[in-house]
């Protein structure tokens, strides 16, 4: 009650203080702006949840959800009996963990380095060049990777012209894994810096000035001011990343994978594509998707829990 009185006094429109129209009137434009994103979330994120019931049906594409037969957990049973599902799950986790280890610290490091670039023009240019790969489609990157790393590709031609042994980057498992991770880091490193750079801008300048007076070296400043300054940002991004551990984009493993490395490149998203779209078994695809979301949620909640226990800010 007090809060309401306070706020209405503050804005000086005390007459219709309890009417909700009052808020519309006051912040109408803001609410209006909210409509579009809310519509997006409702239509594209909430409405499709209805489709999850397919996971518990023997879904018939012609009868639709209402006409299909309910089969309880049969679909899940069938999936959990398949070796290829476990392989896909394992690969998804392996690729994501490696991505996290290699890909998560990289933008932080780069952002700190960029922050140290004094010349504004050079900094802007470097940033732009580093962002660019983010806007390339994986299909194009896949083509570039093939041209560079295949057995007849640029790098191997270069190696063999010096009489060195060719490296089968794309057709043997471990080299493929390294190529896959490295290309991912290359694509995302620039884009990932944006948030960190923004966070760095928010650090109080006076801290740096004070440390200058105290005679801090650059490295000291990075370690004691910049990094702690963006710690909460790092935290939140890390928690979100962990929540995404079980889900993996489709394009990257699909485009970069090939039959020779399918023991590594077959992941959940390509599995879903294969059983759902290629074989037309929508029930199985939905069930795998549901499984993926549930595990993702559990991971997210536990990461958040751990972060809070360690005295950091969680995401809520």
């Amino acid at each position: 009650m007090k809060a309401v009185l306070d706020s209405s006094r503050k804005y000086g429109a005390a007459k219709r203080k309890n009417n909700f129209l009052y808020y519309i009137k006051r912040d109408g434009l803001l609410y209006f702006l909210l409509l579009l994103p809310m519509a997006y979330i409702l239509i594209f994120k909430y409405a499709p949840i209805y489709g999850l019931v397919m996971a518990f049906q023997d879904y018939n594409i012609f009868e639709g959800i209402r006409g299909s037969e309910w089969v309880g957990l049969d679909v899940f049973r069938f999936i959990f009996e398949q070796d290829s599902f476990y392989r896909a799950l394992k690969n998804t986790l392996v690729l994501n963990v490696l991505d996290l280890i290699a890909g998560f610290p990289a933008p932080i490091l780069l952002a700190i380095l960029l922050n140290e670039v004094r010349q504004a023009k050079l900094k802007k240019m470097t940033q732009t060049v580093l962002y660019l790969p983010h806007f390339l489609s994986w299909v194009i990157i896949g083509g570039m990777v093939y041209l560079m790393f295949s057995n007849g590709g640029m790098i191997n031609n270069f190696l063999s012209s010096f009489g060195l042994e060719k490296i089968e980057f794309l057709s043997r498992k471990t080299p493929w894994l390294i190529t896959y991770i490295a290309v991912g880091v290359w694509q995302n490193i620039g884009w990932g810096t944006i948030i960190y750079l923004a966070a760095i801008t928010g650090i109080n300048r006076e801290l740096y000035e004070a440390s200058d007076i105290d005679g801090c070296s650059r490295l000291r400043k990075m370690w004691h001011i910049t990094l702690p300054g963006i710690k909460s940002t790092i935290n939140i991004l890390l928690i979100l990343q962990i929540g995404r551990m079980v889900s993996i984009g489709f394009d990257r493993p699909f485009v970069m994978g090939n039959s020779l490395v399918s023991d590594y490149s077959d992941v959940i998203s390509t599995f879903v594509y294969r059983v759902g779209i290629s074989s037309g078994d929508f029930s199985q695809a939905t069930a795998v998707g549901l499984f993926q979301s549930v595990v993702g949620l559990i991971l997210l909640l536990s990461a958040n829990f751990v972060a809070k226990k360690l005295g950091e800010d969680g995401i809520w």
Partner: protein
Amino acid sequence: MYKGIKKKAAILFSTVLLAVGVAGCGGAGNNNGETVSKGSNASEAGSGSPVTLTVEVFDRGIQGQPDLNNNTWTKYVNEKFGKPNNAIVKFVPVPRSQEVDKLNVLMAANEAPDISFTYDGNTVTRFAKSGGLYTLDELLEKHGQQLKSYLGEKVLSYGKYEGKQISIPGKRTLIAWNGMFIRKDWLDKLGMPVPTNRDELYNTLVAFRDKNPGNVDGVIPWATAASGMNYTFGNLIPSFWGPMSEEEFVTTTNWLKPGTKDAYKWLNKLYNEKLISPDFALDKTTKQADADVTNGKVGFYAANWDYPLSQKIREPLKQNAPDANYVAVDTFKNDEGKYLKEMYNENGIFSFIPKSSKNAELAIKYLNWMADPEVMYFLQFGEEGVNHKLVNGIPQGIAQTGENMQTSNLNMDYTLIVNGAELGDTEKNVRTYAAALAAGDQSYEKLAVDSYKINTTDGYTGFYYGVSNEASIKYGKTLGDMNKQMSDRLVVAKPAEFDALYDKLVTEYMDAGGQAVQDENIKNYRDVKAQSK
């Protein structure tokens, strides 16, 4: 108090949003309803605003191809069939390499074209089993007499499921499947004969590698691409097979047939001796293999029996390596001295009408119209003087660009009820086919005739059970994908790891449904045999 207001606001907003959403959906729904009712009215009345009949067409992504829905052929269809039937025939392009994927999505969304098709029989049966297709017996009886007599009982029987006609199979007039081709000019340069068995081929490939008779940069003795499209290993694998009973031959999965393992071991040896394209497994679209062949770097390759005739190979090859002379070759002899190879059954693509279609009657009328010899002739060969010239009664193609161009051999993507030329006897059909494709180039005509002859020698066709295999419907696509992966991995494997890998992969394959498919095949085979006794 404050909280209450907030809550109310939230509720109101979400209701407004929901209303907007529902209105949006409703709007779309109404629109659909309108067009549908329009359509059905028109087809009943035969006048008024025209009906739109949608027909699938493959998009093969050929360089310089015309708009697939607006070219000489679609104009002819609309003029000759559309106008008299008060219909607009609209072609819906589907990427060739993902036809089943795209079809699954279209079917699930009830947006599949009135006439849809696929080469994958399992997919058709799966749709039929879920009740998603029209049964065509009555429609065919009523509106498809011309079509029925053209295709005949035998061809139509491939389109039946549980005794009902669920699809219209095209008639395949030329039944050769794979072919193998070797650079005759290279052989001549080396003074070597055309190989007639595996060992001779091996020696030839080694000579290609070591002596590089074409003097090209990066010679590829044997070119291939990732399994699954165009490029194959010819009939190499059947040539390794040992003796089997007929039942075994028909029902056993190829991976378990005696000899298959040795066949892959042989390929593995060749790959590790750098006789096969080094990056073939990465070449998922066959672009690399095509480029190697047409740049004159390749000594030997196996692909569809008519692959060298296709425009995308023939023309660039002529430009880049005018001396290249590929001849058809038969080189995989088995222990009995036979050149065993699989041929096609007499059926081509399966056309079907999804339940969501409002124009089933018109669709059958369309296919029936196509069986008219005059119509089929135009769609396959075009107009005399423009698209072909007649030499001794055989239409010879004239190279075309732009809207006259055919994006598939003899327009088979538009002429769904036929695959290959049909002018009486087989020899004439082959020559006509070659003449049409190779624009009257004599050497190609000879290549085609030779290739066809070779690739129908000692041929066998897949056993037709006449009943569907449930396991195959369920696991078919997965097993098909596994087949491709296994094949590639075995060829590229390190020789020391080959045996273990083969056994491991085959076990996985059998566990993933291979066993179930095989068991059902055996059961069906015995049923069929028991009935025929």
